[in-house]
C-alpha cells in the first residue's frame, strides 16, 4: 500500500521531526503540505526535485491563530480538496527563560499553549469534516509523556494534552474511518533540543551526554525513526490500533 492520492498536512513541517515526516509521506506518494510559521520553500523544492510530479507545497500558517488556520484550510480545499492525513507536530518549547513555576508568566503560558495545544485542536477540527466525508482519515500527534520533570509546564501541558485528544478522537470518530495515533516522545535528536540546552547556559554536548545517561539505552531517537513509525501506523488496515499512544522516552520516566 502507498499513499498516492492522499493529501497530508504536517504542522511544524520545516522543523527537526517535521522535515523527516514530510519526506517520508512524500516518498510514500502523498502530496504533503509543509505547514510552518515561515514559508518552507527550500524543503518543498527539495522534495519536489526528487519526483516527476509535485509532491509538496508550502502552507505558511501561524496555527495559534484561528483565522490563519481557517485561511490555510480554504487554500488547501481549493487546491486539493482537503486533508486526508494530519500530523499535529508543531510546537514551541517555551518559555526558554523563566520557565519554572511560579516565575513563568501567564502571558508566556498562554503564548506557548496556544501553539502547542490550541493550534492542533484548530487544525484537527477543520480536518475532520473532509475526512468524515471521505470515510478515511489519519490524525497523528507528536506528543510528550504526561510526567516529564524539568520541562516547562505550558509545553508539557500542550503536548501531554495530545494524549487525551488522541484517545477521545479515536472513540468519537474511528467509526467514521478517522483513526488517531500518538507518540509521547522525549529525548529526540533535533536542533530544538540543542537550542534548549544552550538556552540554559550549558555546553550542548555535555547536556546531551547527561541526557544519554538518563536513558536506559543511552540513545536518542532520530526524527527519521519517528517518521517510520508514523508511516507504520498510517499504512495499517487494522482499526483496532486507532487511539494508540506509545510512550517513547528511553525508560526515563516509566522505569525510573
Amino acid at each position, binding site marked *: 500500500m502507498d499513499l498516492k492520492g492522499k493529501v497530508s498536512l504536517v504542522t511544524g513541517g520545516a522543523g527537526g521531526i517535521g522535515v523527516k515526516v514530510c519526506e517520508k509521506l512524500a516518498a510514500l506518494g502523498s502530496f504533503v503540505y509543509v505547514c510552518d510559521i515561515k514559508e518552507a520553500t527550500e524543503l518543498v523544492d527539495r522534495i519536489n526535485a526528487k519526483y516527476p510530479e509535485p509532491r509538496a507545497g508550502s502552507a505558511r500558517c501561524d496555527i495559534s491563530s484561528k483565522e490563519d488556520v481557517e485561511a490555510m484550510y480554504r487554500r488547501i480545499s481549493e487546491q486539493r480538496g482537503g486533508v486526508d492525513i494530519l500530523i499535529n507536530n508543531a510546537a514551541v518549547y517555551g518559555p526558554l527563560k523563566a520557565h519554572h513555576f511560579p516565575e513563568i508568566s501567564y502571558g508566556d503560558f498562554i503564548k506557548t499553549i496556544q501553539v502547542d495545544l490550541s493550534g492542533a485542536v484548530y487544525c484537527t477540527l477543520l480536518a475532520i469534516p473532509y475526512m468524515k466525508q471521505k470515510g478515511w482519515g489519519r490524525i497523528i500527534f507528536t506528543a510528550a509523556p504526561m510526567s516529564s520533570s524539568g520541562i516547562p509546564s505550558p509545553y508539557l501541558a500542550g503536548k501531554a494534552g495530545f494524549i487525551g485528544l488522541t484517545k477521545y478522537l479515536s472513540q468519537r470518530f474511528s467509526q467514521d474511518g478517522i483513526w488517531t495515533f500518538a507518540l509521547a516522545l522525549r529525548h529526540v535528536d533535533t536542533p530544538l533540543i540543542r537550542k534548549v540546552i544552550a538556552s540554559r547556559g550549558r555546553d550542548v554536548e555535555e547536556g546531551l551526554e547527561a541526557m544519554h545517561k538518563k536513558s536506559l*539505552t543511552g*540513545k536518542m531517537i532520530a526524527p527519521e525513526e519517528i517518521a*517510520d513509525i508514523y508511516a507504520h501506523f498510517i499504512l495499517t488496515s487494522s482499526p483496532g490500533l486507532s487511539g494508540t499512544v506509545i510512550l517513547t522516552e528511553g*525508560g526515563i520516566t*516509566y522505569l525510573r
Partner: protein
Amino acid sequence: MQDLARGYEGKSCIVFGANSVVGVGISKFLSQGGVNLGLIDLDSYRQDALAGDVGSPGSTVVYKTVSSGREDSFQEAVDGVVSDLGSVDYLILAFYLEEERKKVDPDGLSVDIWDELFKEWVLNYFLAMKAVVPHMIRKAAGRVVFVNTTTGYTGEGEGEGELTEGGSVYECACSSAITGIMTSIARDIIPKGISVNGVSLGPNYEDDMERTIWAVELWLSGMCEYACAQILRLY
C-alpha cells in the same frame, strides 16, 4: 532503525507458545519475512497443531517441546534451537492457553487449578526468559516481546464467556504477574542491550491478528530501544 516492513531476513527467533493462535500467526509472519524460527510449545499442548503450516522459502524452522515448569527442559530446548539456528535475535513469548482456560470451572475456585495455571503460565514465562536471555546477553543484543492479556488491567474475563467472574481470578492474577515479571526483568537487561516490550490482548484478538502482528513488528523494530518496557494494550 530498520525499515518496519523489512530487515528481518536471516534473523533468528524463538517463539514460545508456538501452537497458540497468536504463536502460529506471528510465526507465519516472521517466516514470510525470512526469519529463521525455533518453535517451542508445551509437550502437553496441541502438538497436532505445532506451528501448522508455518515455514516459507528462505526460512529455517525447527521444532522443540518443553515440559511445563521444568527448568532443565526449557534450557535443553533453547540450547538445541540456538545450536540449530546459530543464534537467537528475537524471543516471542506467546504462551496463551486457550484450551487450558476452557477447562476452568468459572463457578469453582480451586487452589489446584491455581497451581496448574500459575505453573503453565507465569512460571513458564520466567523459565523461557531464563533459558534465552543469557544467549542474548553474550552478544549484547536481542529483542523480547511478551504476549499477554489485558485482564490484568481490566479484571475481566476474556474471550466470549469462556471465563467469567470467579474464573477470572486465575487469569487476572497471572496476567498482572507476567507484566510484573516483564518490567522487572526489563530494568535489569535493557542496559545490557536487550529490549523488552509487551503486547496485551483483549477479547476477540483472534479476529484481528493484523493488529497483534503490527504491534510485534513495532517492538521488533528500533522503536523498542526508546519505548523501554512499554506494553501496547490492544483492547
